[in-house]
């Protein structure tokens, strides 16, 4: 048997599975987003734009902007925290490198709900901090808590690609920068940063995508003023049972995220090509 045909056969089960359980459902969501809910609460497929018009409604538009804002804030904070940590581990980690990076990853295998809940236990109105210091500071139910929850939730996604980029970088490049009389800052700006930019980009996307769609942080750490688009979608599909509107929200979010996703996928394709070449 020819190798190509043999190998192509291997693509069929997984490909078919992804087609039926990933592509088809997303197409269904797209189709339903033009539908409506009838008087019995039944979702009906149609060709209306009502759901999309509702998106710009003053009830919902701020939620969309808020989601993007919170997610962007999380990306910036993750970068500010994650870059120095990745830098330290990659450059000064020495033989502890693998242990340190494993320590960074470890907490992310603690259930996301539990991690979020741990912050409530710590910072809640009757949590540990307020108890120990006998204060009544309101941490939870603020926008800061929600953004903080997102940062804590997805930080590893920022650190890992930056770490990988730094780890690959040749220290001789820094020497060269120094030899050319670059100050530490200039060397960082003109040598290190451009060399790790792909990692920064990958990390930013990997944090931004789940953060935009998240509803756990806003539900548990935020109040009614911190509702995000993920919460709206979840409510439409569960509590208020307006699936067509939920579908439109989902599609709108996906459309917004596509720009970011394609950025990431282009970079990944380049890397994949190098890896499989």
């Amino acid at each position, binding site marked *: *048997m020819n*190798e*190509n045909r*043999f*190998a*192509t056969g*291997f*693509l069929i089960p*997984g*490909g078919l*599975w*992804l087609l039926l359980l*990933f592509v*088809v*459902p*997303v197409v*269904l*969501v797209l189709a339903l987003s033009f539908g409506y809910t009838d008087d019995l609460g039944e979702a009906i497929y149609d060709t209306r734009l009502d759901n999309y018009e509702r998106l710009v409604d003053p009830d919902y538009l701020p939620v969309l902007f808020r989601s993007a804002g919170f997610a962007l804030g999380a990306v910036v904070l993750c970068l500010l925290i994650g870059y*120095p940590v990745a830098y*330290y*581990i990659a450059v*000064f980690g020495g033989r502890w490198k693998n242990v340190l990076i*494993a*320590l960074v990853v470890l*907490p992310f295998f*603690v*259930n*996301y*709900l*539990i*991690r979020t*809940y*741990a*912050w*409530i*236990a710590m910072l809640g109105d009757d*949590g*540990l901090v307020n*108890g*120990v210091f006998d204060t009544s500071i309101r941490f939870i139910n603020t926008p800061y808590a929600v953004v903080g929850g997102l940062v804590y939730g997805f930080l590893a996604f920022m650190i*890992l690609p930056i770490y990988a980029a730094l780890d690959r970088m040749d220290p001789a490049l820094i*020497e060269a920068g*120094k030899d050319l009389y670059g100050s530490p800052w200039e060397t*960082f700006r003109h040598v290190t940063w451009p060399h790790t930019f792909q990692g920064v980009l990958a990390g930013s996307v*990997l944090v931004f*995508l*789940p953060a935009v*769609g998240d509803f*756990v942080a806003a539900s548990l750490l935020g109040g009614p003023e911190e509702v995000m688009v*993920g919460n709206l*979608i*979840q409510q439409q599909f569960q509590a208020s049972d307006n*699936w067509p509107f939920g579908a439109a929200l*989902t599609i709108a979010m996906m459309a917004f995220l596509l720009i970011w996703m394609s950025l990431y*996928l282009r970079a990944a*394709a380049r890397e*994949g*090509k190098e*890896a*499989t070449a």
Partner: protein
Amino acid sequence: MRAFDRPRFLRVFVWIFFVFLFAPIVLVILFSFNSSRSLQQFDGFSLRWYETFFESESLRDSLIASIQIALITMVVATILGTMLAYGLVRARTRWSDTANVLMLIPLVTPEIVAGASALLLFTQVGLQLSLTTIVLAHITFSISYVTVVVRARLAALGRQVEDASMDLGATRWQTFRLVTLPALWPAIIAAGLLCFALSFDDFVLSFFTTGESPQPLPVRIWTQIRFGVRPTINAIGTFMLVISTLSIGLALLLPRLLGRRESGLKVLLGREGA
């Protein structure tokens, strides 16, 4: 590596980072052994919250359900994902490059999109929400992880060994079974354990596709947290942490135990040979 600059504050910054990273988790573990309900002070060691956890029949059912889901997901996703990886690396078709990229999309799709669309599909085809629907959803979003991990291993392997095997008269199928597959084992096992951990921990997909009962543990935790902070959650959380850490630890260590030189971390991140 003296070439890099070492700003003095960096070391302190990293220490503070690790403190903040682990403080909440240490707190959960510590207070899971608290003898009182308090989350503010530790009143002595006790296992009462673990007893509450394991004595509750419905929580026990949830734990078993979570493990069942994760095991089935692990097996099916690992098989499908490995096959997909082999096809993607070895088949040279016009749309190989496209397929290689499309396969990553499930990884970058927000879980809520995945959950909502899976729910819609199951409802449309009239499938009753149950453990089966959760498993179907979990498998769908685990396949890509396996493919990424195994693909990197396969690419690093090169095809010379396979060519040699064919030269010695083995058929394609024998070569795959006796040469390729054994070389891929570390990556396959690591990927499988990763799937187990991801599925066991997953909340969003399960939340959208779960039936009435039994519900997987994370869905139960969600309900409990929404009703207010309860000490039992500490015990459940600690217990789940142990299971996830075990499976990830195994994923990191197994390649080494199997006598390979490469770091498990690299295998797991699909970064081999890159």
